């Protein structure tokens, strides 16, 4: 089977998966309605408001939010139909809380999340690969055992707690001890004061960027450390595996020095599965990190999912779920293709 056929088959499959996610979301976020009999209308409009509004005004409100009054079974079908149409036309509706289009709300937070997740992923990937290669040259050595132990420790560490510890040390105790000479912000993405002042400043963009970087450091370290363990172990195990292959033996037999064998023959092959893992990571970037963003009060998507969930603002949550699922499916697909392109031994099928 050729690449063309493979892509077509996968595309159909991807489409079906997206349809499944869309349907699943519809029922998941109407679970309170099905389980507890709470109508989405009740969640949105208080009883008092309902009594005081005219019938027409109520009707308009319902229409606007894609709801129907007193949903019975036929109305459910109607709601489902409207929902499907909206999802596939990219109309994610209006947030119950802010009354703004969900897409605008998401777009406002997306850059922050991508910045935080992107930088921390890059840090942990580079560190993971680098140290992984360093210790894989000599498995079982003292260096290797201690590096593995550290990686296992990181694997067992609750990242949100690491974030709290970093905050406590670098945003509370060290500033207190050094009289604010070394200090990091306790929470947030940017200082409002700085933002207001920078608007009229010719160098405003630089100041804002600097301020955001200052806020970024601690959450980035927390997430970077959190991701590091996985990449390190994966890289190390891969490389150790590769180093037992016959072609490595051949390379050594040719008389190549050990460094050349490790970096030219070993690393190149061990990087192949790493590439797919990295592609997947970037597909999941948009997920954000709910816990870490909550700890650092970061204005990002991860915290937005949780905040919206708590106040049952489900147009927002279902839209984010939808976007995450689509990016994950695409990232999976790209990772598979990439693997095939990079490794000629792989046949599509």
């Amino acid at each position, binding site marked *: 089977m050729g690449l063309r056929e493979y892509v077509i088959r996968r595309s159909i499959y991807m489409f079906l998966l997206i349809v499944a996610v869309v349907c699943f979301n519809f029922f998941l976020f109407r679970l309170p309605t099905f*389980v507890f009999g709470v109508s989405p209308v009740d969640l949105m409009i208080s009883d008092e408001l309902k009594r005081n509004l005219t019938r027409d005004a109520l009707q308009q409100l319902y229409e606007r939010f894609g709801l129907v009054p007193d949903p019975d079974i036929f109305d459910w079908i109607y709601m489902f139909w409207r929902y499907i149409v909206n999802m596939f036309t990219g109309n994610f509706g209006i947030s119950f809380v802010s009354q703004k289009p969900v897409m605008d709300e998401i777009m406002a937070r997306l850059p922050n999340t991508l910045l935080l997740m992107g930088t921390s992923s890059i840090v942990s990937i580079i560190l993971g690969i680098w140290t992984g290669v360093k210790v894989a040259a000599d498995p079982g050595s003292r260096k290797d055992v201690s590096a593995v132990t550290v990686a296992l*420790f990181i694997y067992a*560490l609750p990242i949100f*707690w690491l974030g709290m510890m970093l905050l406590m040390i670098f945003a509370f105790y060290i500033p207190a001890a050094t009289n604010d000479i070394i200090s990091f912000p306790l929470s947030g993405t940017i200082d409002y004061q700085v933002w207001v002042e920078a608007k009229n400043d010719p160098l405003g963009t630089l100041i804002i960027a600097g301020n955001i970087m200052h806020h970024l450091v601690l959450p980035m370290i927390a997430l970077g450390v959190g991701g590091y363990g996985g990449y390190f172990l994966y890289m190390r195990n891969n490389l*150790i595996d590769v180093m*037992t292959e016959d072609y490595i033996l051949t390379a050594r037999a040719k008389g190549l020095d050990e460094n050349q064998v490790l970096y030219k023959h070993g690393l190149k092959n061990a990087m192949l599965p790493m590439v797919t893992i990295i592609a997947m990571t970037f597909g999941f970037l948009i997920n954000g990190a709910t816990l870490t963003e909550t700890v650092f009060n970061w204005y990002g998507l991860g915290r937005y999912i949780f905040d919206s969930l708590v106040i049952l603002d489900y147009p927002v949550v279902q839209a984010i*779920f939808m976007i995450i699922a689509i990016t994950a499916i695409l990232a999976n697909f790209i990772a598979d293709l990439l693997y095939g392109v990079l490794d000629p031994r792989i046949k599509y099928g």
Partner: protein
Amino acid sequence: MSKEAKTDWKDSNWYIGITSLWGEFSKHKIGVLGIVILLLYTGMAITAPALATHDPSPTNKVAPSFLAPSWMSVFDPTGVITQQIIPDPSWDEDPQVTVEGPQQSQFSYDHGDSGSSVGESHLNLTWNYLAGEGLNFTKDPEGQLPDCESFIYATQSFNWTYNSLPSDVNISLSFATTLTGDFQGREEGGLMFRVYMWLIDSSGNWRRIYQSNPPYSQDVISRRVDLNYFDIAAGWGGMIERDGSQEDPDDILTIAVGIAPTARFEYFLGSEPWRDYNGSVTVTITNLEMVPYGDYYGILGTTDKGADAWSQLVYGSRISLTIGILATALSTIVGVVVGMTAGYFGGKTDEILMRIVDFLLVIPGLPLMMVLAAFLGQAQETIIVVIAVLGWTGTSRLIRSQVMAEKNKAYVESARAIGASDTYIIYRHILPNVTPILFADITLGVVGAILSESGLAFLGLTDPNQPSWGRMLADAQSSGGFSAGAWWVVVFPGMMITILSLAFTFVGHTLDQVLNPRLRER
């Protein structure tokens, strides 16, 4: 069945398998360390009621917020450690009882130990009155002493070693009252006497801190007294050194509990009760506790709500272990069944099951858990199911690939040839051969479940009345624990989570090293 019963259990495959596994396992230091830590945690979870010093509910206020752990007072010698300081709170020993005033014969006391009718050690203070006996009254509304010159009281003294005032003092007194004669019979009988508590400092100054009011009960009732600032200053103030000297001669403070007739006994609404009253008042004191609050409290201090942090920490091990193990057990069962079915039967079944797995893998994990936990409720069972729903996909893929490798081997084919059923082959032949792989997967699954649980608890999606480490961290975060300097509410719960999941990680990693044939070759 009868055949199996005859063979020695030591010859069973399981026994041999486990002993040889242990032989390999014990060579790995970190694995053994992991096992030891797990045993310690399990012991902590089992003995939690004995280890905990208080009711572990996060809302059970026992002291002011954010008191530091007691052992931190080594850095602060003048700091007051919060603890119960009455030397004999349950009155087990023969107490010191004093009778004041000219009419000594009317008052008596009696100390009973646990063998008596009350069922616990107690002190009876009795005032026995015959009509017309008379009493001396001096009415001083500002005074600290009772209206009557004659009264009885019992004292306990303690040494106040700190050189600073307590920030607050709580006293609890448990007593029962038995009335006879006119004290019981007449409507106003309860107004003729009072139960008092005083603080007496070493200079001999009295400070009244409690006086009782009717109605009285024959059952033991508890009275809790929260001292105000003036009481504390009067009682403790003289013991604080200023410029090298202090007001009182020494650092001993005495608390007195007694009964005394009131001024109403002399003259009450136009009548004179002392002329015609007959009867007795007996107060049975069973317990007296006094807790002066300082800057330090208990083993691990207090939380934002003033609850005891140590008790919560101890009980938190129960939640983490239960949820971690049960959720993993559930997800492993589902994963094994799905993986077995998909791998063994292949074809359409495999296709459908693996598409479900694919589907679950693209749904964002933690957000889905949050949604389910928020919608389905906060009960412990719900959290277990929610974590398990997302945990089985990895196991099922692992088992599926193993089964696909095993099922074409000769032993399976010969079993099928002699007419073994599919279920028999799966459970009798294939399952035992894939179990080793499963062990490492399970232990690492527990780590995931423990971290998920603490994350959900941190977001406030678990039962708010259950003490758990994640919730302690959530409380610390939301109340600004470390901004208040209370690092102990941040450090210890997180450390407990980390060490527990680290122990599981160590065990899992070691099992992987021992059992995974691919790794064993090296």
